[in-house]
């Protein structure tokens, strides 16, 4: 250790700097997590049994997986197009647009839900405007409270995440490759498919996994928009804790399942991006 730290960071000082972070991590992450796992495993793990026998759980799992794949898929498609556009702009325009695009990330899910209700709800601005043209407000206004509407609200704040993940890769991409492919005989779509896609797909996959994990775990927007009517796991968990409040071990088991799904999806993203990372660093080092 004698030659490990420089004069500026002796081991003792380094420990002092690390302590607050470690304490927070232990107190607010490791501890609750352990409690949940212990709670779920209490009674010999019978909580899992009860959970898996509950048809509501399986419906919730299905809903969660559908929402956790469709919303990210749409977000990745839209986000990639947006990122492609931004990557071709000047530095100034890019900075400005990125600021606007990142804004939804700072909003809480409740604000997003409230905003959607004001605009697309039964008495929403868009709903009433469309009613002028003969669209039934009951149908238009109902959309936002349906699972599809929930998906749309999710997409709204998943797209910025996709843009932020994909944009650096697109900025590094040499557009002359597309020109080259076209001059060599590839149509524009074929050039993008053959040349761009293979080079950016790891980051697309990473963006998908990241947004998928967010969509699977989020509940604020869902709760505000659809209450507990739509069957998704986070809302099921919410109702187990808040309403009935009787079966804490089952709630803990559900939490463990949710965390397991999210961890799997995130590690998928890690595996997908691991190959690309070294080449990205060499490129940016140029």
């Amino acid at each position: 250790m004698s030659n490990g730290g420089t004069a500026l960071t002796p081991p003792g000082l380094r420990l002092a700097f690390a302590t607050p972070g470690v304490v927070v991590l232990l107190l607010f992450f490791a501890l609750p997590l352990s409690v949940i796992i212990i709670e779920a495993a209490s009674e010999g793990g019978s909580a899992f049994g009860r959970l898996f026998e509950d048809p509501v759980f399986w419906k919730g799992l299905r809903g969660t997986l559908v929402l956790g794949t469709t919303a990210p898929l749409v977000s990745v498609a839209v986000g990639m197009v947006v990122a492609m556009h931004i990557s071709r702009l000047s530095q100034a325009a890019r900075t400005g647009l990125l600021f606007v695009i990142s804004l939804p990330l700072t909003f809480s899910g409740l604000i997003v839900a409230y905003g959607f209700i004001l605009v697309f709800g039964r008495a929403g601005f868009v709903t009433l405007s469309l009613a002028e043209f003969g669209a039934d407000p009951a149908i238009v206004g109902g959309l936002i409270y349906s699972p599809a509407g929930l998906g749309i609200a999710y997409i709204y704040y998943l797209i910025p995440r996709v843009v932020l993940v994909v944009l650096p890769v697109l900025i590094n991409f040499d557009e002359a490759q597309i020109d080259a492919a076209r001059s060599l005989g590839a149509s524009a779509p074929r050039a993008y498919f053959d040349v761009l896609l293979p080079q950016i797909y790891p980051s697309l996959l990473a963006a998908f996994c990241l947004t998928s994990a967010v969509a699977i775990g989020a509940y604020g927007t869902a709760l505000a928009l659809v209450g507990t009517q739509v069957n998704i796991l986070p809302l099921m968990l919410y109702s187990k804790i808040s309403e009935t409040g009787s079966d804490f071990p089952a709630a803990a088991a559900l939490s463990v399942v949710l965390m397991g799904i999210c961890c799997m999806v995130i590690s998928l993203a890690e595996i997908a991006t691991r190959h690309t990372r070294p080449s990205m660093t060499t490129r940016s080092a140029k």
Partner: protein
Amino acid sequence: MPILFEAVSFAYPGTQTGVRAIDLAVGDGELVALIGPSGSGKSTCLKLLAGFYRPDHGRINVDGHDVDTLSPERRRLGIVFQHYALFPHMSTRDNVAYPLKVRGVTRAERRRAADEMLDRVGLSDLGDRAPKTLSGGQQQRVALARALVFKPRALLLDEPLSALDAGLRVAMRDEIRRVQREAGIATIHVTHDQEEALSIADRVAIMSDGAIVQIGKPDEVYDRPRTRFVARFVGQANFWPGMVGEENQVETPIGRLRHTQEGVRPGDKVLVLVRPERLDLFFEDHKTPPPNYFKGHVTQDRFLGSIRRFDFAVAGNLIRVETRNRAAPSAVAIPPDAVRLLPPDDNENKKGELS
């Protein structure tokens, strides 16, 4: 005619920059170099021909077909890009085979054709390597092989050597010329390096401000440039303002010079051009001095290895001279046939200039 530009004009949207009234014909197997400073429109010509832009006016013909309505992929032109634009996720062989792949050639056939092409550029052993692992010169060859493998109607080279270091550039110049000759393909080579252009092109077109100011064989544009701009762009030059006198004489700030140029009349204002390597040097006083003989002394002396470039002071003016000779001369003479008379500059009436 494989490549034909007819009165082609183009301006980038919302700007005045682009190209104006370009007429250019490139014959079978001919290599035409487009040179000019950056922003002179040479790359724009290439992009118009490639189909990445459409002309505002005029027409572009390839092999007798009007290509202006064709998208880039349907023009069948082989392009080598400045930084090669190789596909990093494909092997060298797959890069070369790509044009055949999009044309639906069978896997076995395109592998055979790609290997044959790699062999022609001297890379037969590197087919399985990733482009990133190749040297700059090797990547250059891969790009050339990829641009030729589908037997394009013409070859377009966009500053293909600018990313290489000096020594390799000279070697690759010959390589490009060799491969181009073998393929017998009409070629446009864009570069800002005049030496590169003069050394490999059949004809050189000099561009300035979006227009071709002169086109001709390399020795033609070097020896008989039409303007100061051309003279200066293709090599070193002495310039003096002049007034044509009687009997093949021209008055200049360094004195009266004899010339051999036809078609000028006494009283014409001209710009006198003398290439620095055309001067004769004298190390002792000459009893019967030749025409255009000047005594003086060396001021600035620059050793460039194979040659020396020095400034020779005469009568308050400087003559720039290039020579292999390492001794300092006491006098120089300008052979009359080395004196070129160009149209006078409109806006630059300086008293003389070295360039």
